[in-house]
């Protein structure tokens, strides 16, 4: 069994991270009733004897002593991290796995990337190495950050290069929160584009998220629940979106419901690697199957169902609804419509009491309404994990490598150009050592190239598929 380390950077990254650890603890507590430290828990947690000083004292099996998250928390201002360390999850984090500063990055990618990057490079390396040493077999780094700010965006992407150099064999999965249209940070387009270049070059897989989509999902859910349409079968406070009944009580903060969705995404992504099932899917299989060309590694995700259901044995109709919803544009975690764009590849990760025949029936049913690229007409990767998420009887995570990410990037580029043409706020960046205008133009070029690749694929959408002539052999 392999381990993963979560690196949460910046305010957004740390808040999401906090939700993630809370849900992870709850999930493992529900599955592992005997409080024995097993391989599933060890994928994200260490078992530590806290009496032993100096971060040693890892216990590899037996009863759970004290669980420590395999996490590194980074923020260039102290508020968020301090709150975490004073909150109910304080015992879960190893106090030595933090890097903080006081002044913050001022929503400036250059400050995060260049200034704090060089300032903290050594310390970052040291903490990462330490966390890797605690792992038997480290498979993956999960980086959580936002694109629009300064720390998550700048320092978070600086990290990627460090990870690539130091741990070339370990996968880098990045969960990036993209700024939505009404983002209140004026310079978020600059920060995002500069960060995109790093994601293009140094990430193995990126899961883009945007706040608007998360917000829409929460609103819809609240509407459904409050209108009483769902009847008594649906419990109002879904464990997907709320922390009610969570392992440790946290005060509900405004972004909590949205962060919980992302936290669930990460849990479901790793469930088939941690728990047993009839068709397992490890993290290295995600990259292998969903990334046909190294640059096209942006995966649109959707999670269903969003509400808990009272009954356990779901009649097939509800189960099928779960599959249909995964492809609707209302369930995607970014503003995207995969059904009307081109699929390069699609992964369906199912949890709970679902069998291969249910999976196949739904693929057959949904396939005709989806467009796949000509060389990957049956581009489906599937997995079945027997352990359902807490409070649900089954769930589905769909990951799509689909040209529907293009609009997000095009929008970003447009917002960037509006600012850049006027050179607005540019001096804040250029005055940082190491920053020049070429940084901006190169980042723009990188994004334009990416958009062009998606354009070329889209162009093949309506062309009739022609089989390439086969080799002919003499008999």
């Amino acid at each position, binding site marked *: *069994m*392999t381990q993963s380390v979560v690196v949460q950077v910046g305010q957004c990254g740390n808040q999401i991270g906090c939700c993630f650890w809370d849900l992870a603890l709850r999930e493992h507590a529900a599955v592992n009733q005997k409080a024995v430290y097993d*391989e599933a828990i060890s994928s994200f947690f260490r078992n530590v004897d806290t009496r032993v000083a100096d971060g040693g004292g890892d216990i590899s099996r037996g009863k759970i002593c004290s669980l420590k998250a395999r996490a590194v928390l980074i923020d260039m201002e102290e508020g968020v991290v301090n709150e975490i360390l004073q909150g109910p999850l304080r015992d879960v984090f190893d106090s030595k796995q933090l890097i903080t500063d006081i002044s913050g990055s001022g929503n400036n990618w250059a400050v995060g990337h260049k200034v704090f990057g060089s300032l903290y490079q050594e310390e970052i390396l040291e903490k990462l190495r330490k966390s890797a040493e605690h792992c*038997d*077999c480290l*498979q993956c780094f999960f980086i959580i950050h936002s694109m629009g700010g300064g720390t998550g965006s700048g320092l978070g992407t600086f990290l990627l290069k460090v990870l690539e150099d130091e741990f070339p064999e370990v996968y880098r999965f990045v969960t990036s929160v993209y700024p939505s249209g009404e983002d209140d940070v004026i310079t978020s387009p600059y920060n995002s584009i500069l960060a995109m270049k790093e994601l293009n070059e140094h990430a193995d897989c990126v899961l883009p998220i945007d706040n608007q989509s998360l917000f829409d999902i929460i609103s819809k859910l609240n509407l459904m629940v409050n209108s009483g349409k769902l009847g008594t079968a649906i419990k109002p406070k879904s464990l997907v979106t709320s922390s009610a009944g969570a392992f440790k009580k946290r005060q509900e903060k405004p972004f909590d419901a949205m962060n919980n969705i992302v936290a669930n995404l990460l849990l479901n992504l790793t469930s088939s690697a941690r728990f*047993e099932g*009839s*068709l*397992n899917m*490890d993290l*290295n*299989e995600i*990259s*292998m*199957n*969903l*990334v*046909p*060309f*190294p640059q096209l590694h942006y995966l649109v995700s959707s999670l269903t169902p969003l509400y808990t259901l009272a009954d356990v044995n779901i009649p097939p109709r509800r189960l099928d609804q779960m599959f249909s919803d995964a492809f609707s544009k209302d369930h995607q975690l970014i503003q995207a419509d995969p059904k009307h764009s081109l699929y*390069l*590849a699609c992964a369906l990760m199912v949890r709970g009491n679902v*069998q*291969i*025949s*249910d999976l*196949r029936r739904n*693929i*057959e049913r949904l*396939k005709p309404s989806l467009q796949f690229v*000509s*060389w*990957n*007409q*049956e*581009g*489906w*990767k*599937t997995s*079945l994990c027997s352990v359902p998420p807490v409070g649900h009887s089954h769930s589905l995570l769909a990951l799509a490598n689909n040209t529907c990410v293009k609009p997000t990037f095009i929008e970003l580029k447009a917002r960037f150009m509006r600012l850049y043409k006027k050179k607005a706020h540019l001096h804040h960046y250029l005055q940082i050592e190491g920053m020049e205008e070429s940084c901006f133009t190169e980042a723009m070029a990188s994004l334009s190239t990416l958009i062009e690749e998606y354009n070329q694929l889209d162009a093949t959408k309506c062309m009739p598929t022609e*089989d*390439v002539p*086969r*080799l*002919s*052999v003499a*008999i």
Partner: protein
Amino acid sequence: MSIVTVQLGQCGNQIGFEVFDALFSDSHCPQGLCSKRENEAYQASCKERFFSEEENGVPIARAVLVDMEPKVINQTLSKAAHSGRWKYDQHSCFCQKQGSGNNWAYGYSVHGPRHKESIMDLIQKEVEKCDSLSGFFIIMSMAGGTGSGLGAFVTQNLQDQYSNSLKMNQIIWPYGTGEVIVQNYNSILTLSHLYRSSDALLVHENDAIHKICAKLMNIKQISFRDINQVLAHQLGSVFQPTYSGEGSWHYRRNPLGDLMENLVPHPEFKMLGVGNIPQMSENSLAYSTFTWAGLLKRLRQMLISNAKMEEGIDWQVRPPLSGLPTLSKMSTNKEFHFNTSIANLVILRGKDVHSADVGAFKDPALYTSWLEPVHAFSVWKTQRAFSKYEKSAALVSNSQFLVKPLDVTVGKAWNMFASKAYIHQYTKFGIEEEDFLDSFTLLEQVIASYCNL
């Protein structure tokens, strides 16, 4: 003689468990429909082939379990141990932590050489437990990374190290609509490599078995467990002991050798398929009776129309009339094409088996012209019934049955290869475009050879 089974990857290990379970259950089945002495001889023969003895009498499967991540092997070991009836040897397992990531190149070029010694050592130990070795049965899927890539590597090493022993690979052909996106690449790489190093490839298609579960077994929510159990039943009906004809209570000693001798007359044609009849849920079984004539008639039509199960057989397909000029060479697009065989083996088990008339299988029209039917067709009859079926018939056939699926898989892989999609994932670990081209060439050759029968 004994068979050493090597179970590779999640698929291989999950199936392997069901196979040993089916073999064990059948050999201890009380409704053998034969004398006590016969039954005991059957049990002893089954045991010699597949199980070794432990001190406290619990039989241990003659198997080596290999997987690159621990979850499935742990599950398999504990399922067997919990049954209390037979188990695996805990020391015959080889496990790693990280898996092969569905990457054939990783399984073949990284895991293979890295773990070659450990794995071959484990196999050697199992071989030493056998009084005499009939050969190896390797269970693997083609779609993933471990079963396919590491499986190909291990088979190659078995050829080098045990050149006198036979190797039969049980291959699982994945569902047409993907389980794994790169399954076509993994499949062609596996098949081309196995074609060079294995003695016979016994192919089971997930799609076909899925249909059997749905239509014949009436299972509503089909799980992989159901599929594996049907598969195990089919394999059991082939591999369980059969009379050698030298008088009663003498069962054939060399199962793999006998199968190869009858079915693989030419190394260019190695692909074998299994069908059996009847196949139904236990509930229906109690209410059904069959005649040998009826079973054999359907089995024959299943063969020539390439049907995988006894329902929905196309009775329109007929063998070409002899004396007339042969029809144009089989095109893979033709609808009513007739499935020509190279060799067939029919295995009959159960009541009144000696009265069964297999004459219809000896019709020369069924076979390609370069073998006499007397050499192309064999039948094994055994009184002892199999797994509660009063009468059962299995057909192992070397015929054109796999041409269409193979052609489709090669076609899809070729289209993907032309766009260069995913190739970087393979070149990363030492499998170059050249290797792909070699595989394509070999398989096109195989397709052409089978088409020209």
